[in-house]
């Protein structure tokens, strides 16, 4: 089983397929869960405190908006932990953790330059594309080793 970073990080489809084929999807939910389940000071709704954009300085400079740095504080450690990534390149309608285009540009750049296997896809808009989409993911995950048969 390897850790696969999913983009969009909120993707239901990718989260499902990666897990279904025996690997561990890394995305927003895990980052948010970690914060929601950690004691500290109250900062609803996401338990992201003003300290998080400061942690985000590890991935983006101080002149980068706080919303980018705060999002990077959630996603950055998961990119660091990832062994592979699947990117859906036309993910224009994902919100919240994926709501900022500048963060998303930085995420994709970091995924591409980390030197790990990356699968690039687009959303399947027809059944034929759906077949290709699932097959490509199955093949990619299979090549990583250690997944489900």
């Amino acid at each position, binding site marked *: 089983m390897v850790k696969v970073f999913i983009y969009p990080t909120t993707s239901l489809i990718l989260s499902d397929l990666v897990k279904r084929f025996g690997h561990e999807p890394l995305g927003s939910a895990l980052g948010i869960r970690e914060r929601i389940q950690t004691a500290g000071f*109250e*900062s*609803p*709704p*996401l338990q*992201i*405190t*003003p*300290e*998080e*954009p*400061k942690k985000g300085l590890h991935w983006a400079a101080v*002149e*980068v*908006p*706080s*919303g*980018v*740095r*705060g*999002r990077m504080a*959630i996603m950055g450690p998961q990119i660091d932990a990832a062994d592979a990534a699947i990117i859906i390149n036309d993910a*224009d*309608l*994902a*919100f*919240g*953790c*994926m*709501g*900022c*285009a*500048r963060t998303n540009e930085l995420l994709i750049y970091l995924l591409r330059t980390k030197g790990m296997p990356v699968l690039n896809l687009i959303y399947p808009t027809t059944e034929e594309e759906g077949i290709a989409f699932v097959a490509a993911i199955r093949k990619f995950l299979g090549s990583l080793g250690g997944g489900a048969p």
Partner: protein
Amino acid sequence: MTAPVRIAQLSCGPEYSGIQKEINDAAAAVGAEIFYPEISLKEMQRDYGAFGLDIRSPDLKLAIARAKALVEGRIETDGVFIATCFRCAEGAIVRNELRRYIVEKSTLPVVSYSFTERTTAGTLLTRMEALTTIARRRALLAREVQEGLTLGVDSGSSTTKAVVMRDNRIIGKGWVPTTEVAKSAEEAIGNALSEAGVKRDEIQAAGATGYGRHLVGSRIKADLIQEELTVNSKGAVYLADHQKGPCTVIDIGGMDNKAITVYDGIPGTFTMGGICAGASGRFLEMTAKRLGVEITELGPLAMKGISRNVPMNSYCIVFGTQSLVNALSGGSAPEDVAAAACHSVAEQVFEQQLQEVEIKEPVIMVGGTSLIEGLVHAMGLLLQTKIVVPPNSQYIGAVGSALLASGFIREKR
């Protein structure tokens, strides 16, 4: 308990900057609650597309579609709070265009703000208070005539002002530098009362505004404790005798600046802030000190000078001071330096704040800095208009407070 004022939030980034709680707290502190307008994905796609501004960030697309739902009345709200990250160009474009769109197409009060992770509820409080006041207290703000015997206090960051008014006339004034907030207020009030020849216990109602309003207001048992955005708007249109129709009020203060568009005496949009004290009255005070003149002499001096002769940019007060020192040591004429300082402050306010409100004539300048004629002149040149400075403009907050406080006399009886 009255129902909370409902404020729709259109934003990108506050949850991830760790400041959503600060927004919620600021709203709760003034009896308001924040909500997210509910729209479906289909509505979002349709309305974002129809708006016509092509951007990349999905959360900003959502904000645009939500704004449309509010303007078209599909979702009810009392006010709108637009917030995007400081230093985000895409966010700034959307923030400005949405504010403009909502103001033009609806009567909803709007506040827009660009935040960082350091934004606190305290910073947002005055803006949130003004927003809820405009939404909730339109009746109070409709008052055009002062009645009875009332007291108004404006506890500002530089100076504390007090006025006593009777039957729509100012009968006593006090103006002292702010040192200890409560003590300075007592002194200003004492001066105003003695000039008016009335005793404290004769006062029928009192109002307080400015930075120290909560402390001073509780000390004097004020009937009205109100932020300076709405109070100054009322004071400005009252003193300028322009209670009907549109106007713009500019108040360059000791610590921050306000630019407010007003219609029929009620504030519409406003901006409040100033990146640095370089764009405030403080810088002019420093200039006067360096030139060895009283602040009251700076204005007339500036009128004799030519600002272009001295390069000065007070975007930052430290750099502004540096230009000041350089100019003086380089032998520039004091008149030109004074004029350059006035121009620089006016330019900062023009660039940083007046771009965020629609300038409607007449433009009324108020507050202590409106007495510096060089500053008013420089602002007039930038805005290409003749600026109105009403009589007693330095007492704007105190007069606005005394005027609005008279609305409480009947309640007491």
